[in-house]
């Protein structure tokens, strides 16, 4: 009884490779695209703007009122769009966390995570592209859907797969019991009461919550934490970069189809993947005596999830240092007080008090305290999670989106039961949650429920 009717959903996905460029685009396509984005958009009423316009505004979480990002929303109405459906593209500032937050908000407000290659598929299905070269098109679709699915399932860590399967089984056992009570009422099998179902829904829902908490960490694990090294010239940026990119820390990426800026560096710091941005700029400002790199740093800061701000401990704070401290104030940052090998004019305690941030004193040249710096980076973002050997991490948006959907369905189960609805009705949502979880693991045999029913219960005349 698994439904795969997904053709009419409004879908959303991040359509720029994560970690590339200063701008990310989140694309939404389908009948409700405009209405869904409009719920999150503070600015013009997108349902009233003309087609093919770009609109300035903010994405705001309607539940909390919190501003997520400053964005441009392009509204393109059917049929003159890529998919021949209504499309809204949200141009946001990049950073993995912010982009992902926007996507999650869209999913929570009625959009569905797009399947791999689904925008292209819709373009074909809606006749946007004539199949003049049938073979290659079919090959593309085949490759995109199959491969992406394989990848998606492979990306499930063993722990997560086991965990979600266990949750599904937990739901399935109760579902089968509910069905037995309905189809074989005269049998003295135990009755699933509202209390029992409620307890199960809440238990599973709690476990999903814990998985969702890992989602952000999982994202970063998979995509790399965008890290900007900033500081005025000759403060030691280049040395830190060289230290971090020494051969044993370099990561070889094999992300197909994405061409990375060759000057961007991927490194692993105590198992935490960092994507160092604007490495060119670092070399540029360090190598040549020239105009101040603040303007350039601004861009890097905007994109970054983590800032490593270098200060020269042997000198007083300069105007430029103060400007950089100001620019990075709202960000997650570590202030590196470098050059402890020289006489110190600044102390870590003072700077920490003034900035409210983590401060660490190092001598990059003498390789002093660098291990502590690495430990601090790790501590700041992973709260010790990656230490666990059995990693149960949600590592992509598709998984997170489906978990969030399952969670909502379980919330509906609970509220239905609390409103006095009979078990066999709220079971509609309970089955939905089970199916959503099945979409994550790729388990969706149509007769799974009936098989479970007959293997667990002894029934029949």
């Amino acid at each position, binding site marked *: 009884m698994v439904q795969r*009717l997904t053709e*009419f959903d409004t879908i959303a996905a991040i359509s720029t490779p994560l970690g590339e460029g200063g701008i990310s685009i989140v694309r939404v396509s389908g009948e409700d695209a405009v209405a869904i984005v409009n719920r999150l958009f503070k600015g013009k009423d997108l349902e009233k703007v003309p087609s093919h316009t770009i609109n300035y505004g903010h994405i705001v979480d309607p539940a909390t009122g919190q501003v997520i990002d400053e964005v441009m929303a392009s509204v393109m109405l059917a049929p003159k769009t890529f998919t021949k459906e209504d499309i809204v593209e949200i141009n946001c500032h990049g950073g993995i966390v912010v982009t992902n937050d926007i996507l999650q908000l869209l999913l929570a407000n009625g959009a569905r995570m797009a399947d791999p290659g689904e925008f292209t598929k819709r373009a074909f299905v809606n006749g946007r592209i004539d199949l003049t070269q049938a073979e290659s098109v079919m090959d593309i679709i085949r490759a995109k859907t199959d491969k992406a*699915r394989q990848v998606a399932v492979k990306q499930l860590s063993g722990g997560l797969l086991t965990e979600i399967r266990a949750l599904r089984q937990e739901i399935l056992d109760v579902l089968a019991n509910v*069905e037995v009570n309905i189809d*074989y009422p005269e049998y003295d099998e135990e009755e699933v009461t509202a209390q029992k179902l409620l307890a199960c829904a809440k238990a599973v829902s709690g476990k999903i919550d814990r998985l969702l908490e890992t989602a952000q960490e999982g994202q970063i694990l998979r995509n790399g934490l965008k890290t900007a090294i900033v500081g005025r010239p000759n403060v030691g940026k280049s040395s830190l970069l060289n230290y971090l990119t020494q051969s044993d820390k370099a990561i070889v990426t094999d992300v197909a189809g994405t061409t990375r800026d060759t000057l961007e560096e991927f490194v692993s710091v105590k198992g935490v993947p960092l994507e160092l941005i604007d490495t060119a700029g670092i070399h540029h400002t360090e190598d040549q005596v020239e105009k101040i790199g603040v303007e350039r740093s601004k861009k890097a800061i905007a994109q970054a999830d983590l800032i490593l701000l270098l200060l020269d401990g042997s000198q007083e704070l300069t105007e430029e240092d103060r400007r950089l401290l100001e620019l990075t104030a709202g960000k997650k940052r570590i202030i590196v007080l470098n050059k402890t090998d020289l006489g110190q004019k600044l102390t870590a305690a003072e700077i920490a008090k003034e900035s409210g941030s983590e401060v660490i004193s190092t001598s990059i040249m003498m390789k002093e305290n660098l291990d502590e710096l690495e430990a601090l980076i790790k501590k700041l973002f992973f709260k010790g999670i990656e230490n666990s050997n059995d990693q149960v991490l949600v590592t992509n948006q598709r998984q997170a989106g489906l978990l969030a959907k399952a969670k909502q369905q379980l919330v509906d189960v609970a509220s239905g039961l609390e409103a*006095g609805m009979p078990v*066999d*009705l709220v079971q509609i949502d309970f089955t939905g949650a089970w199916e959503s979880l099945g979409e994550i693991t790729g388990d969706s045999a149509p007769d799974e429920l009936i098989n479970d*029913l007959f293997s667990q219960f002894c029934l029949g*005349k």
Partner: protein
Amino acid sequence: MKTYVSNEYDVIVVGAGHAGCEAALASARMGEKTLLLTIGLDMVAFMPCNPSIGGPAKGTVVREIDALGGEMGKNIDKTYIQMRMLNTGKGPAVRALRAQADKWDYHEEMKRTIENTPNLTLRQAVVDDLIVEDRECRGVVTNTGARYRAKSVVLTTGTAARGRIFIGELNYSSGPNNTIPAIKLSESLERLGFKLRRFKTGTPPRVNRHTIDYSKTEEEPGDKEPRHFSFTSRDEDYLTDQTSCWMTYTNPKTHEIINENLDRSPMFSGDIVGVGPRYCPSIETKVVRFADKDRHQIFLEPEGRKTEEIYVGDFSTSMPEEVQLEMLHTVAGLEKVEMMRPGYAIEYDVVDPWQLTHTLETKRIKHLYMAGQMNGTSGYEEAAGQGLIAGINAALSAEGKPAFTLGRDEAYIGVLIDDLVTKGTEEPYRLLTSRAEYRLLLRHDNADLRLTEKGHDLGLIDDDRYAEFLVKKELIQEDLDRLREITVHPTIAVNEYLAGLGQTDLNGGVKADVFLRRPRVTVEDVERLTGQKLAGDRYVKEQVEIDIKYAGYIKKQEIQVARLRRQEAKKIPKDIDYDQIEGLATEAREKFAKIRPETLAQAERISGVNPADLAILSVYVQNGKYAKVQK
């Protein structure tokens, strides 16, 4: 055998079990000159297994048959000896009516109806062969040499096709209940290229009522509140003098005897090759598969008023006769029981149902329809539902009119047929409520609202009944509107009533429909508390109450149905050649070619087809037309 040319008909129905009777009556009532052939006139609408009709999902099918102008509901309402509503403590979607039938009365009453229906001829004959010309079925040939020609033919062979009965080491060629089996017809179907397979089912022993010690059993009486299968039956005709059923249990001693004699059961000795249903296992299968259970329920059901035979429900077995008796004697209340007929297993031929379309016409031979147990189902109700659809379509095709089908969102009958033709079945198929995605919409109480219009359009519901139905519909709307207008005020009486239900007080006045959404509040309570009377009877009020109380969930399912319909609207061209579609996985290509889905929605339901194949197919067929493809 020398053949002779006999009469010509519009529609011929072969087999007069529950499928055949519905098929023949529908065809005749639609004005077709119809011939109904049966191996034994004494077996018309006979119940060779349990003497009951209805239950979850199945009971809803009976209501649907009735709403479409079929006979099963009316016939059981005339011949039941006990009526019970099941699942009354649950939601409206799963409430189910079940009746114990007087199986002899049931047979006689159906036979009488058939005999008195205009355009319908009932005759005893064994059909050996089909007349097929240019892959179109044109009639049948009987074992006495009669050649009957017809515009369309419906086969409903039940368990008679190469039937074989097993009782311990004994086995012999036989139809159900020791009737003549149909041997040659199976051979004829194989010659025509149909793929047949073997299924197995079974029935328990029957015992003499006087030899049961009822004091050791639990009595299960019928309901006092009138309920009927047919929408045309009246409360004043409800049977007050009902017969009880009784329940008892097996015990470790029973299981010990079964285990000791397993080598003598054809189920375990390897004599039976047919696939049996998981949901209808023999008692020996239950004991083996659920070894940790120390008891199994047994239901004692009377076979009728004019017989002392009692059906020992849930005790189906093919053990040797003397072992069956020994087993029975271990059961509380049955220690001294006299066995009148032994239980048996029966193996029979079925056609793999993917060889049929949603109209139940075969894909291989035009104008040939198949229905009932021969399509791999089990159960009288499942058979009757298919029989009705096959009969309707045989009649429509004889007239050259467009076919009639039901969707998964319209009826359990639609779910049943779609499951069969889309997924096939690996075991005898039983309808379960969990097979229906939209069961909140497919309720037993609203079958008339769902289907009466269609029955009327087909000519199976007469104008008087249709007019009555329209009145009911109007009353429902009127009362729904009324409830939105009536205000319930926070009077002392109202708040006392709410306190009685364990609920919070009403603070201000609310409209009655809002008030009704509170748990356990009924329309009658609203009427009493407000002093306002609604216009409809209790059946109208039932609809109104369900509509209002469960509106949120109904809406959810309606949204799902709307999506299904959009996908169902995407037709796949009939002449599609799957070999020409690049990129399909081999398994998907084979399945599509075998099942030939009619719509993209149906293609999605085929098991073992992955999303990439569906994506390719949907791109390729773009809304019923081929995509512009250049190779």
